[in-house]
Protein backbone atom coordinates (compact mmCIF):
# COMPACT_ATOMS: atom_id res chain seq x y z
CA UNK A 1 0.00 0.00 0.00
CA UNK A 2 1.42 3.39 -0.88
CA UNK A 3 0.09 6.45 0.85
CA UNK A 4 2.92 8.93 0.87
CA UNK A 5 4.85 8.34 -2.36
CA UNK A 6 4.63 11.47 -4.51
CA UNK A 7 2.25 13.03 -2.05
CA UNK A 8 4.30 15.88 -0.54
CA UNK A 9 1.09 17.36 0.84
CA UNK A 10 0.42 14.26 2.94
CA UNK A 11 4.04 14.00 4.05
CA UNK A 12 4.18 17.64 5.11
CA UNK A 13 0.89 17.28 7.00
CA UNK A 14 2.50 14.75 9.35
CA UNK A 15 4.45 17.59 10.97
CA UNK A 16 2.20 20.18 12.57
CA UNK A 17 3.35 23.27 14.45
CA UNK A 18 3.36 21.62 17.85
CA UNK A 19 2.92 17.88 17.28
CA UNK A 20 3.86 15.10 14.84
CA UNK A 21 1.99 12.07 13.56
CA UNK A 22 2.92 8.57 14.70
CA UNK A 23 3.42 7.38 11.10
CA UNK A 24 6.73 9.23 11.21
CA UNK A 25 8.01 6.47 13.47
CA UNK A 26 6.00 3.47 12.33
CA UNK A 27 5.66 3.57 8.56
CA UNK A 28 8.05 1.45 6.47
CA UNK A 29 6.95 3.41 3.43
CA UNK A 30 8.08 6.66 5.02
CA UNK A 31 11.35 4.97 5.93
CA UNK A 32 11.92 4.10 2.27
CA UNK A 33 11.06 7.67 1.32
CA UNK A 34 13.52 8.97 3.91
CA UNK A 35 16.24 6.87 2.30
CA UNK A 36 15.30 8.19 -1.12
CA UNK A 37 14.77 11.84 -0.20
CA UNK A 38 15.78 12.99 3.27
CA UNK A 39 19.14 11.24 3.49
CA UNK A 40 19.93 12.14 -0.10
CA UNK A 41 18.95 15.80 0.13
CA UNK A 42 20.86 16.52 3.34
CA UNK A 43 24.57 16.51 4.15
CA UNK A 44 25.16 13.25 5.98
CA UNK A 45 28.25 12.42 8.04
CA UNK A 46 30.17 9.57 6.44
CA UNK A 47 33.38 9.22 8.44
CA UNK A 48 36.57 10.88 9.60
CA UNK A 49 39.60 11.39 7.37
CA UNK A 50 41.87 9.97 10.11
CA UNK A 51 40.32 6.58 9.35
CA UNK A 52 42.15 6.57 6.00
CA UNK A 53 45.57 8.06 6.74
CA UNK A 54 47.58 6.61 3.81
CA UNK A 55 47.11 6.36 0.05
CA UNK A 56 44.86 3.40 -0.76
CA UNK A 57 43.34 3.28 2.76
CA UNK A 58 39.59 2.82 2.62
CA UNK A 59 36.50 2.39 4.72
CA UNK A 60 33.19 0.98 3.52
CA UNK A 61 30.01 2.56 4.82
CA UNK A 62 26.36 2.45 3.79
CA UNK A 63 24.58 5.79 3.66
CA UNK A 64 20.84 5.77 3.05
CA UNK A 65 21.06 2.16 1.93
CA UNK A 66 23.76 2.91 -0.68
CA UNK A 67 27.09 1.14 -0.17
CA UNK A 68 29.90 3.71 -0.36
CA UNK A 69 33.69 3.65 -0.21
CA UNK A 70 35.82 6.40 1.24
CA UNK A 71 39.36 6.17 -0.07
CA UNK A 72 42.55 8.21 0.32
CA UNK A 73 44.10 9.25 -3.01
CA UNK A 74 47.83 9.30 -3.85
CA UNK A 75 47.69 13.13 -3.74
CA UNK A 76 46.21 13.10 -0.22
CA UNK A 77 42.63 13.93 -1.16
CA UNK A 78 39.71 11.93 0.20
CA UNK A 79 37.30 10.55 -2.41
CA UNK A 80 33.95 8.88 -1.94
CA UNK A 81 32.92 6.28 -4.53
CA UNK A 82 29.90 4.08 -4.92
CA UNK A 83 30.98 0.61 -3.82
CA UNK A 84 29.71 -1.05 -7.00
CA UNK A 85 31.74 -2.53 -9.81
CA UNK A 86 31.07 -0.84 -13.14
CA UNK A 87 30.66 -4.27 -14.76
CA UNK A 88 27.89 -6.09 -12.91
CA UNK A 89 27.63 -4.48 -9.50
CA UNK A 90 29.87 -6.52 -7.23
CA UNK A 91 30.97 -4.59 -4.16
CA UNK A 92 34.66 -3.96 -4.71
CA UNK A 93 35.45 -4.19 -1.01
CA UNK A 94 33.54 -5.89 1.73
CA UNK A 95 35.92 -5.39 4.66
CA UNK A 96 35.05 -2.54 6.98
CA UNK A 97 38.43 -0.94 6.40
CA UNK A 98 41.85 -1.72 4.97
CA UNK A 99 44.23 -0.73 2.19
CA UNK A 100 43.47 -1.56 -1.42
CA UNK A 101 46.98 -0.78 -2.70
CA UNK A 102 47.36 1.31 -5.84
CA UNK A 103 44.13 0.24 -7.51
CA UNK A 104 40.83 -1.55 -7.03
CA UNK A 105 40.43 -5.01 -8.48
CA UNK A 106 36.97 -6.48 -8.67
CA UNK A 107 36.92 -10.00 -7.22
CA UNK A 108 34.39 -11.23 -9.81
CA UNK A 109 35.91 -10.71 -13.32
CA UNK A 110 38.99 -8.73 -12.32
CA UNK A 111 38.15 -5.37 -13.85
CA UNK A 112 40.54 -2.86 -12.29
CA UNK A 113 40.23 0.83 -11.47
CA UNK A 114 42.48 3.62 -10.26
CA UNK A 115 41.92 4.97 -6.76
CA UNK A 116 39.78 7.78 -8.14
CA UNK A 117 37.58 5.22 -9.92
CA UNK A 118 38.93 5.73 -13.47
CA UNK A 119 39.01 2.49 -15.50
CA UNK A 120 42.43 0.82 -15.65
CA UNK A 121 42.17 -2.61 -17.26
CA UNK A 122 39.74 -5.34 -18.30
CA UNK A 123 40.76 -8.98 -18.96
CA UNK A 124 40.16 -10.26 -22.53
CA UNK A 125 39.90 -6.68 -23.66
CA UNK A 126 39.57 -7.66 -27.34
CA UNK A 127 36.09 -8.93 -26.70
CA UNK A 128 34.92 -5.36 -26.23
CA UNK A 129 36.23 -4.08 -29.53
CA UNK A 130 33.41 -2.78 -31.64
CA UNK A 131 30.96 -2.76 -28.71
CA UNK A 132 29.32 0.22 -27.04
CA UNK A 133 31.07 -0.35 -23.70
CA UNK A 134 33.18 2.81 -23.85
CA UNK A 135 30.11 4.94 -24.38
CA UNK A 136 28.13 3.19 -21.66
CA UNK A 137 28.25 4.04 -17.92
CA UNK A 138 29.89 0.67 -17.39
CA UNK A 139 32.89 1.77 -19.44
CA UNK A 140 33.46 4.94 -17.43
CA UNK A 141 34.77 3.30 -14.29
CA UNK A 142 33.47 3.65 -10.78
CA UNK A 143 30.87 6.29 -10.13
CA UNK A 144 31.92 8.76 -7.49
CA UNK A 145 29.81 10.79 -5.11
CA UNK A 146 29.98 14.29 -6.51
CA UNK A 147 29.09 16.29 -3.43
CA UNK A 148 31.66 15.52 -0.76
CA UNK A 149 32.86 17.95 1.86
CA UNK A 150 35.81 17.33 4.14
CA UNK A 151 35.37 19.87 6.92
CA UNK A 152 38.31 19.81 9.32
CA UNK A 153 38.59 16.06 8.60
CA UNK A 154 34.88 15.35 9.15
CA UNK A 155 33.65 13.87 5.87
CA UNK A 156 30.08 14.59 4.76
CA UNK A 157 28.25 13.63 1.59
CA UNK A 158 25.15 14.84 -0.20
CA UNK A 159 23.87 12.15 -2.53
CA UNK A 160 21.34 14.11 -4.51
CA UNK A 161 22.39 16.27 -7.42
CA UNK A 162 20.45 19.32 -6.27
CA UNK A 163 20.55 20.92 -2.88
CA UNK A 164 22.22 23.46 -0.65
CA UNK A 165 25.99 23.77 -0.37
CA UNK A 166 27.57 22.26 2.73
CA UNK A 167 28.19 25.69 4.29
CA UNK A 168 24.66 26.86 3.61
CA UNK A 169 23.20 23.64 4.93
CA UNK A 170 25.17 23.55 8.21
CA UNK A 171 25.63 27.25 8.88
CA UNK A 172 26.55 28.24 12.41
CA UNK A 173 26.40 24.77 13.89
CA UNK A 174 29.82 24.21 12.29
CA UNK A 175 31.15 26.05 15.33
CA UNK A 176 30.62 22.80 17.24
CA UNK A 177 33.13 20.97 15.03
CA UNK A 178 35.49 23.95 15.26
CA UNK A 179 35.25 23.85 19.04
CA UNK A 180 35.96 20.14 19.12
CA UNK A 181 38.93 20.30 16.74
CA UNK A 182 40.35 23.45 18.35
CA UNK A 183 40.52 21.58 21.65
CA UNK A 184 43.61 20.12 20.09
CA UNK A 185 46.38 22.71 20.46
CA UNK A 186 47.58 21.41 17.09
CA UNK A 187 44.13 21.52 15.49
CA UNK A 188 44.13 17.81 14.72
CA UNK A 189 41.84 14.98 15.83
CA UNK A 190 42.20 11.25 15.27
CA UNK A 191 39.53 8.62 15.74
CA UNK A 192 40.76 6.32 18.50
CA UNK A 193 39.83 3.33 20.58
CA UNK A 194 37.28 1.82 18.21
CA UNK A 195 33.58 2.40 17.78
CA UNK A 196 30.87 1.15 20.14
CA UNK A 197 27.92 -0.12 18.12
CA UNK A 198 24.39 -0.48 19.40
CA UNK A 199 21.29 -1.89 17.77
CA UNK A 200 18.22 -0.15 19.13
CA UNK A 201 14.77 -1.33 18.12
CA UNK A 202 13.27 2.08 17.60
CA UNK A 203 12.93 4.68 14.87
CA UNK A 204 16.03 6.81 14.34
CA UNK A 205 14.17 10.08 14.87
CA UNK A 206 13.23 9.05 18.39
CA UNK A 207 16.89 8.64 19.24
CA UNK A 208 17.76 11.98 17.67
CA UNK A 209 14.96 13.74 19.57
CA UNK A 210 16.23 12.32 22.83
CA UNK A 211 19.64 13.89 22.24
CA UNK A 212 17.80 17.17 22.81
CA UNK A 213 15.53 15.94 25.60
CA UNK A 214 16.52 17.41 28.94
CA UNK A 215 13.29 16.64 30.76
CA UNK A 216 13.90 12.89 30.80
CA UNK A 217 17.15 12.40 32.79
CA UNK A 218 15.59 12.92 36.23
CA UNK A 219 12.96 10.24 35.75
CA UNK A 220 14.58 7.98 33.16
CA UNK A 221 18.00 7.75 34.81
CA UNK A 222 16.80 7.65 38.40
CA UNK A 223 18.04 4.12 39.01
CA UNK A 224 21.59 4.86 37.85
CA UNK A 225 21.90 8.27 39.49
CA UNK A 226 20.41 7.13 42.79
CA UNK A 227 22.84 4.23 42.91
CA UNK A 228 25.74 6.57 42.09
CA UNK A 229 24.68 9.16 44.65
CA UNK A 230 24.30 6.54 47.38
CA UNK A 231 27.76 5.19 46.63
CA UNK A 232 29.29 8.65 46.60
CA UNK A 233 27.50 9.83 49.76
CA UNK A 234 29.76 10.95 52.56
CA UNK A 235 32.37 12.39 50.22
CA UNK A 236 32.99 16.11 50.50
CA UNK A 237 32.08 18.09 47.35
CA UNK A 238 35.78 18.91 46.99
CA UNK A 239 36.96 15.27 47.14
CA UNK A 240 38.57 14.24 43.86
CA UNK A 241 36.03 12.12 42.02
CA UNK A 242 36.85 9.00 40.06
CA UNK A 243 36.24 9.77 36.38
CA UNK A 244 33.19 7.53 36.29
CA UNK A 245 31.57 9.45 39.14
CA UNK A 246 32.51 12.77 37.55
CA UNK A 247 30.59 11.65 34.46
CA UNK A 248 27.58 9.83 35.92
CA UNK A 249 26.59 12.01 38.89
CA UNK A 250 25.54 15.10 36.83
CA UNK A 251 22.83 13.00 35.14
CA UNK A 252 20.97 13.39 38.43
CA UNK A 253 20.79 17.19 38.12
CA UNK A 254 17.37 18.78 38.62
CA UNK A 255 14.96 20.32 36.11
CA UNK A 256 16.24 23.79 36.85
CA UNK A 257 19.79 22.83 35.88
CA UNK A 258 18.69 21.49 32.51
CA UNK A 259 16.35 24.40 31.88
CA UNK A 260 19.10 26.92 32.62
CA UNK A 261 21.67 25.23 30.41
CA UNK A 262 19.91 26.80 27.42
CA UNK A 263 19.61 25.74 23.84
CA UNK A 264 19.85 27.19 20.37
CA UNK A 265 18.27 26.07 17.12
CA UNK A 266 19.44 26.78 13.60
CA UNK A 267 17.91 26.37 10.16
CA UNK A 268 17.79 22.81 8.73
CA UNK A 269 17.19 21.03 12.03
CA UNK A 270 20.56 21.67 13.68
CA UNK A 271 20.87 22.68 17.31
CA UNK A 272 23.18 23.19 20.26
CA UNK A 273 21.94 22.10 23.67
CA UNK A 274 23.75 23.54 26.67
CA UNK A 275 24.83 26.93 25.35
CA UNK A 276 25.42 28.17 28.93
CA UNK A 277 26.81 25.03 30.59
CA UNK A 278 26.13 21.29 30.65
CA UNK A 279 26.79 18.11 32.56
CA UNK A 280 30.29 18.25 31.03
CA UNK A 281 31.21 21.71 32.34
CA UNK A 282 32.74 20.70 35.64
CA UNK A 283 35.40 18.20 34.69
CA UNK A 284 38.61 18.71 36.66
CA UNK A 285 40.84 21.49 35.32
CA UNK A 286 44.13 20.68 33.57
CA UNK A 287 46.46 23.67 33.98
CA UNK A 288 49.23 22.48 31.64
CA UNK A 289 46.79 21.69 28.85
CA UNK A 290 45.10 25.05 29.28
CA UNK A 291 48.49 26.77 29.04
CA UNK A 292 49.16 24.88 25.79
CA UNK A 293 45.76 25.99 24.50
CA UNK A 294 46.51 29.64 25.32
CA UNK A 295 49.86 29.34 23.57
CA UNK A 296 48.18 27.86 20.47
CA UNK A 297 45.04 29.96 20.19
CA UNK A 298 45.69 33.10 22.24
CA UNK A 299 44.05 33.99 25.53
CA UNK A 300 40.61 34.99 24.27
CA UNK A 301 39.98 32.15 21.84
CA UNK A 302 41.40 29.56 24.26
CA UNK A 303 39.05 30.69 27.02
CA UNK A 304 36.14 30.68 24.58
CA UNK A 305 36.91 27.12 23.47
CA UNK A 306 37.48 25.71 26.93
CA UNK A 307 34.46 27.36 28.54
CA UNK A 308 32.09 26.01 25.92
CA UNK A 309 31.04 22.47 26.80
CA UNK A 310 27.61 22.00 25.24
CA UNK A 311 25.68 18.88 26.12
CA UNK A 312 25.12 17.97 22.46
CA UNK A 313 25.34 19.66 19.11
CA UNK A 314 23.15 18.07 16.46
CA UNK A 315 24.11 18.11 12.79
CA UNK A 316 20.76 17.07 11.40
CA UNK A 317 19.99 14.31 10.47
CA UNK A 318 22.65 11.94 11.74
CA UNK A 319 25.51 13.38 13.76
CA UNK A 320 25.73 14.46 17.38
CA UNK A 321 28.92 16.08 18.66
CA UNK A 322 30.33 16.54 22.14
CA UNK A 323 33.36 18.84 22.11
CA UNK A 324 34.10 17.79 25.67
CA UNK A 325 34.41 14.86 26.17
CA UNK A 326 35.69 14.43 22.62
CA UNK A 327 33.03 12.08 21.39
CA UNK A 328 30.46 11.84 18.65
CA UNK A 329 27.44 9.70 18.05
CA UNK A 330 26.40 8.71 14.56
CA UNK A 331 22.83 7.65 13.84
CA UNK A 332 22.56 5.06 11.07
CA UNK A 333 18.92 4.16 10.35
CA UNK A 334 18.36 0.52 9.33
CA UNK A 335 14.56 0.24 9.19
CA UNK A 336 11.53 2.12 10.51
CA UNK A 337 11.94 0.25 13.79
CA UNK A 338 15.68 -0.43 13.88
CA UNK A 339 18.61 1.95 14.26
CA UNK A 340 22.34 1.51 14.58
CA UNK A 341 23.97 3.98 16.96
CA UNK A 342 27.73 4.39 16.90
CA UNK A 343 29.77 6.09 19.62
CA UNK A 344 33.23 7.28 18.55
CA UNK A 345 36.08 8.66 20.65
CA UNK A 346 38.83 11.02 19.50
CA UNK A 347 42.42 11.76 20.43
CA UNK A 348 43.36 15.43 20.20
CA UNK A 349 46.94 16.07 19.04
CA UNK A 350 48.95 17.95 21.65
CA UNK A 351 46.37 17.37 24.39
CA UNK A 352 46.95 15.17 27.45
CA UNK A 353 45.95 11.50 27.33
CA UNK A 354 43.33 12.27 29.97
CA UNK A 355 41.08 13.87 27.33
CA UNK A 356 41.04 10.65 25.34
CA UNK A 357 40.40 8.65 28.52
CA UNK A 358 37.42 10.87 29.25
CA UNK A 359 36.00 10.29 25.78
CA UNK A 360 36.40 6.53 26.06
CA UNK A 361 35.11 6.43 29.63
CA UNK A 362 32.03 8.49 28.77
CA UNK A 363 31.22 6.38 25.73
CA UNK A 364 31.68 3.19 27.73
CA UNK A 365 29.54 4.32 30.64
CA UNK A 366 26.81 5.98 28.61
CA UNK A 367 26.78 4.66 25.02
CA UNK A 368 28.07 1.08 25.21
CA UNK A 369 25.66 -1.83 24.67
CA UNK A 370 26.76 -2.66 28.24
CA UNK A 371 26.27 0.91 29.51
CA UNK A 372 25.04 1.54 33.05
CA UNK A 373 23.09 4.62 31.95
CA UNK A 374 21.61 3.84 28.53
CA UNK A 375 19.70 0.67 29.34
CA UNK A 376 16.85 2.76 30.64
CA UNK A 377 16.90 5.05 27.59
CA UNK A 378 16.90 2.13 25.19
CA UNK A 379 14.08 0.41 27.05
CA UNK A 380 11.99 3.56 26.77
CA UNK A 381 12.69 4.08 23.05
CA UNK A 382 11.69 0.48 22.39
CA UNK A 383 8.66 1.00 24.58
CA UNK A 384 7.59 4.08 22.58
CA UNK A 385 8.02 2.14 19.34
CA UNK A 386 5.42 -0.35 20.66
CA UNK A 387 3.29 2.17 22.53
CA UNK A 388 2.61 4.29 19.47
CA UNK A 389 0.73 1.37 17.94
CA UNK A 390 -1.83 1.67 20.70
CA UNK A 391 -4.22 3.96 18.86
CA UNK A 392 -6.61 6.18 20.73
CA UNK A 393 -4.20 9.02 19.93
CA UNK A 394 -2.25 9.20 16.70
CA UNK A 395 -0.18 12.24 17.70
CA UNK A 396 3.05 12.85 19.59
CA UNK A 397 3.05 16.04 21.63
CA UNK A 398 5.83 18.59 21.17
CA UNK A 399 3.91 21.49 22.70
CA UNK A 400 6.33 22.44 25.47
CA UNK A 401 7.09 26.21 25.21
CA UNK A 402 5.58 26.46 21.71
CA UNK A 403 5.44 30.05 20.55
CA UNK A 404 4.01 30.96 17.14
CA UNK A 405 6.86 33.48 16.66
CA UNK A 406 9.30 30.57 16.27
CA UNK A 407 7.71 29.67 12.93
CA UNK A 408 9.20 32.68 11.19
CA UNK A 409 12.69 32.69 12.73
CA UNK A 410 15.61 30.41 11.97
CA UNK A 411 18.17 30.98 14.76
CA UNK A 412 16.60 31.09 18.22
CA UNK A 413 18.20 30.90 21.65
CA UNK A 414 15.93 29.49 24.32
CA UNK A 415 15.64 27.63 27.62
CA UNK A 416 17.08 24.12 27.81
CA UNK A 417 13.83 22.23 28.24
CA UNK A 418 12.02 23.80 25.28
CA UNK A 419 10.75 21.17 22.84
CA UNK A 420 11.57 23.69 20.11
CA UNK A 421 14.81 21.77 19.60
CA UNK A 422 12.71 18.78 18.51
CA UNK A 423 10.10 20.76 16.59
CA UNK A 424 12.98 22.29 14.67
CA UNK A 425 14.15 18.79 13.67
CA UNK A 426 10.73 17.82 12.37
CA UNK A 427 10.29 21.03 10.40
CA UNK A 428 13.59 20.21 8.71
CA UNK A 429 12.40 16.64 8.20
CA UNK A 430 9.32 17.80 6.31
CA UNK A 431 11.34 20.23 4.22
CA UNK A 432 14.00 17.70 3.18
CA UNK A 433 11.44 14.99 2.55
CA UNK A 434 9.37 16.93 0.07
CA UNK A 435 12.25 18.75 -1.67
CA UNK A 436 12.38 17.30 -5.16
CA UNK A 437 9.45 14.92 -4.54
CA UNK A 438 7.29 14.50 -7.63
CA UNK A 439 3.62 15.23 -7.29
CA UNK A 440 1.28 12.42 -8.29
CA UNK A 441 -0.67 13.35 -11.43
Amino acid at each position, binding site marked *: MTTYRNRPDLVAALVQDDRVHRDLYLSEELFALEQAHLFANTWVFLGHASQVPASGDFITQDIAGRPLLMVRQPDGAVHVLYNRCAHKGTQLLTDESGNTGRFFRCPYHAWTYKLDGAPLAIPLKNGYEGTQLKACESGQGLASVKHVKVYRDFVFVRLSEQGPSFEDYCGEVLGAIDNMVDRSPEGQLTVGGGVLR*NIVHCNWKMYLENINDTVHPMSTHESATQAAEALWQGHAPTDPKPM*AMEQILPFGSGYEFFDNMGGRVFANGHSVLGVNFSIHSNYAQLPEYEAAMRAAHGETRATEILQRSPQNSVFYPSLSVKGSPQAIRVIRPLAANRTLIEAWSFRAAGAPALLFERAMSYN*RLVFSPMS*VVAHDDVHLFESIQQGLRAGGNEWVSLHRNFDAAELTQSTITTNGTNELLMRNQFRAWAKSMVAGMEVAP
Partner: protein
Amino acid sequence: MNDPRDFVAHEAALLDERRFDDWLALFAEDGHYWVPLLGAAQVDPFSHNSLAYEDRLLLQLRVDRLKNPRAHSQHPASHSQHVLQPSRIAQEGAASGEVLLHTPFIYIEARGDNQTQLSGTARHRLVRTPTGWSIRQKRIDLLNAARALPAIQLFI
Protein backbone atom coordinates in the same frame (compact mmCIF):
# COMPACT_ATOMS: atom_id res chain seq x y z
CA MET B 1 36.34 -25.11 46.87
CA ASN B 2 39.94 -25.87 46.09
CA ASP B 3 39.75 -26.57 42.36
CA PRO B 4 39.57 -23.20 40.57
CA ARG B 5 37.48 -24.82 37.81
CA ASP B 6 34.71 -25.40 40.34
CA PHE B 7 35.01 -21.77 41.35
CA VAL B 8 34.40 -20.62 37.76
CA ALA B 9 31.27 -22.76 37.50
CA HIS B 10 30.05 -21.43 40.86
CA GLU B 11 30.67 -17.85 39.77
CA ALA B 12 28.50 -18.29 36.65
CA ALA B 13 25.78 -20.01 38.65
CA LEU B 14 25.54 -17.04 41.03
CA LEU B 15 24.92 -14.74 38.06
CA ASP B 16 22.28 -17.01 36.58
CA GLU B 17 20.55 -17.08 39.98
CA ARG B 18 20.69 -13.25 40.09
CA ARG B 19 22.64 -13.42 43.37
CA PHE B 20 24.58 -10.30 42.40
CA ASP B 21 25.79 -9.33 45.89
CA ASP B 22 27.23 -12.79 46.45
CA TRP B 23 28.78 -12.59 42.99
CA LEU B 24 30.38 -9.20 43.65
CA ALA B 25 31.83 -10.51 46.90
CA LEU B 26 33.94 -12.91 44.83
CA PHE B 27 36.02 -10.01 43.45
CA ALA B 28 39.30 -8.95 45.05
CA GLU B 29 39.49 -5.33 46.28
CA ASP B 30 41.43 -4.43 43.13
CA GLY B 31 39.36 -6.78 40.97
CA HIS B 32 38.10 -5.81 37.49
CA TYR B 33 35.45 -7.00 35.09
CA TRP B 34 36.51 -6.40 31.50
CA VAL B 35 34.83 -6.92 28.11
CA PRO B 36 37.29 -5.65 25.47
CA LEU B 37 35.91 -4.21 22.25
CA LEU B 38 38.49 -6.10 20.19
CA GLY B 39 37.82 -9.39 21.95
CA ALA B 40 40.82 -11.69 22.31
CA ALA B 41 42.96 -9.39 20.15
CA GLN B 42 42.94 -6.53 22.64
CA VAL B 43 46.11 -5.98 24.66
CA ASP B 44 44.93 -3.55 27.31
CA PRO B 45 41.87 -1.57 28.41
CA PHE B 46 43.49 1.85 27.86
CA SER B 47 44.66 2.18 24.26
CA HIS B 48 41.37 0.85 22.89
CA ASN B 49 37.85 1.12 24.27
CA SER B 50 35.89 -1.69 25.88
CA LEU B 51 32.24 -2.65 26.07
CA ALA B 52 32.81 -2.64 29.83
CA TYR B 53 35.82 -2.08 32.05
CA GLU B 54 34.72 -1.83 35.65
CA ASP B 55 36.28 -1.80 39.07
CA ARG B 56 34.42 -2.75 42.23
CA LEU B 57 32.93 0.71 42.61
CA LEU B 58 31.28 0.54 39.19
CA LEU B 59 30.23 -3.06 39.62
CA GLN B 60 28.61 -2.09 42.91
CA LEU B 61 26.82 0.74 41.07
CA ARG B 62 25.52 -1.73 38.50
CA VAL B 63 24.34 -4.19 41.13
CA ASP B 64 22.65 -1.46 43.17
CA ARG B 65 20.96 -0.10 40.06
CA LEU B 66 19.56 -3.51 39.19
CA LYS B 67 17.88 -3.61 42.62
CA ASN B 68 16.30 -0.18 42.20
CA PRO B 69 12.56 -0.44 41.41
CA ARG B 70 13.02 2.46 38.97
CA ALA B 71 15.44 0.49 36.81
CA HIS B 72 12.93 0.75 33.96
CA SER B 73 14.79 -1.60 31.67
CA GLN B 74 14.24 -4.36 34.22
CA HIS B 75 10.47 -4.37 33.74
CA PRO B 76 10.35 -7.20 32.85
CA ALA B 77 13.57 -8.41 34.42
CA SER B 78 16.42 -9.98 32.45
CA HIS B 79 17.66 -13.48 33.16
CA SER B 80 20.83 -15.14 32.06
CA GLN B 81 22.09 -18.61 31.29
CA HIS B 82 25.79 -19.37 31.05
CA VAL B 83 26.60 -22.58 29.17
CA LEU B 84 30.22 -23.31 29.98
CA GLN B 85 32.71 -25.62 28.35
CA PRO B 86 35.16 -27.20 30.80
CA SER B 87 37.70 -24.65 32.04
CA ARG B 88 41.32 -25.07 31.07
CA ILE B 89 44.11 -23.89 33.34
CA ALA B 90 46.19 -21.67 31.10
CA GLN B 91 48.75 -20.50 33.63
CA GLU B 92 49.62 -21.11 37.24
CA GLY B 93 51.97 -18.97 39.28
CA ALA B 94 53.24 -20.77 42.36
CA ALA B 95 54.88 -17.57 43.63
CA SER B 96 52.04 -15.14 42.91
CA GLY B 97 49.32 -17.53 43.98
CA GLU B 98 47.49 -16.66 40.76
CA VAL B 99 45.85 -18.96 38.30
CA LEU B 100 44.52 -18.09 34.84
CA LEU B 101 41.61 -20.11 33.48
CA HIS B 102 40.07 -20.13 30.02
CA THR B 103 36.42 -21.07 29.78
CA PRO B 104 34.68 -21.04 26.39
CA PHE B 105 31.00 -20.27 26.80
CA ILE B 106 27.65 -19.50 25.27
CA TYR B 107 25.74 -16.79 27.10
CA ILE B 108 22.04 -16.18 26.70
CA GLU B 109 20.26 -13.18 28.11
CA ALA B 110 16.50 -13.33 28.00
CA ARG B 111 13.99 -10.59 28.63
CA GLY B 112 10.33 -10.71 27.73
CA ASP B 113 10.05 -12.24 24.27
CA ASN B 114 13.66 -11.51 23.36
CA GLN B 115 16.77 -13.60 23.71
CA THR B 116 20.28 -12.41 23.00
CA GLN B 117 22.96 -15.01 22.45
CA LEU B 118 26.66 -14.30 22.77
CA SER B 119 29.66 -16.54 22.77
CA GLY B 120 33.34 -16.32 23.50
CA THR B 121 35.90 -17.22 26.12
CA ALA B 122 35.96 -16.08 29.72
CA ARG B 123 39.44 -15.59 31.15
CA HIS B 124 39.50 -15.60 34.93
CA ARG B 125 42.59 -14.42 36.75
CA LEU B 126 42.07 -15.80 40.24
CA VAL B 127 44.12 -15.25 43.34
CA ARG B 128 44.24 -17.64 46.29
CA THR B 129 42.94 -16.28 49.58
CA PRO B 130 42.78 -17.95 53.04
CA THR B 131 39.16 -18.89 52.34
CA GLY B 132 39.37 -19.95 48.69
CA TRP B 133 39.69 -17.91 45.49
CA SER B 134 38.93 -14.36 44.54
CA ILE B 135 38.75 -12.68 41.13
CA ARG B 136 41.50 -10.28 40.18
CA GLN B 137 40.14 -10.00 36.66
CA LYS B 138 37.28 -11.54 34.76
CA ARG B 139 37.89 -10.86 31.11
CA ILE B 140 35.27 -11.77 28.50
CA ASP B 141 36.54 -12.15 24.95
CA LEU B 142 33.45 -12.10 22.78
CA LEU B 143 33.45 -13.72 19.36
CA ASN B 144 32.01 -10.61 17.71
CA ALA B 145 32.70 -7.87 20.23
CA ALA B 146 33.05 -4.95 17.81
CA ARG B 147 29.86 -5.63 15.84
CA ALA B 148 26.56 -3.98 16.60
CA LEU B 149 24.96 -5.44 19.69
CA PRO B 150 21.62 -4.98 21.40
CA ALA B 151 21.55 -3.94 25.07
CA ILE B 152 23.31 -6.45 27.33
CA GLN B 153 21.98 -5.77 30.79
CA LEU B 154 23.40 -8.39 33.12
CA PHE B 155 26.89 -9.84 33.47
CA ILE B 156 28.34 -12.12 30.80
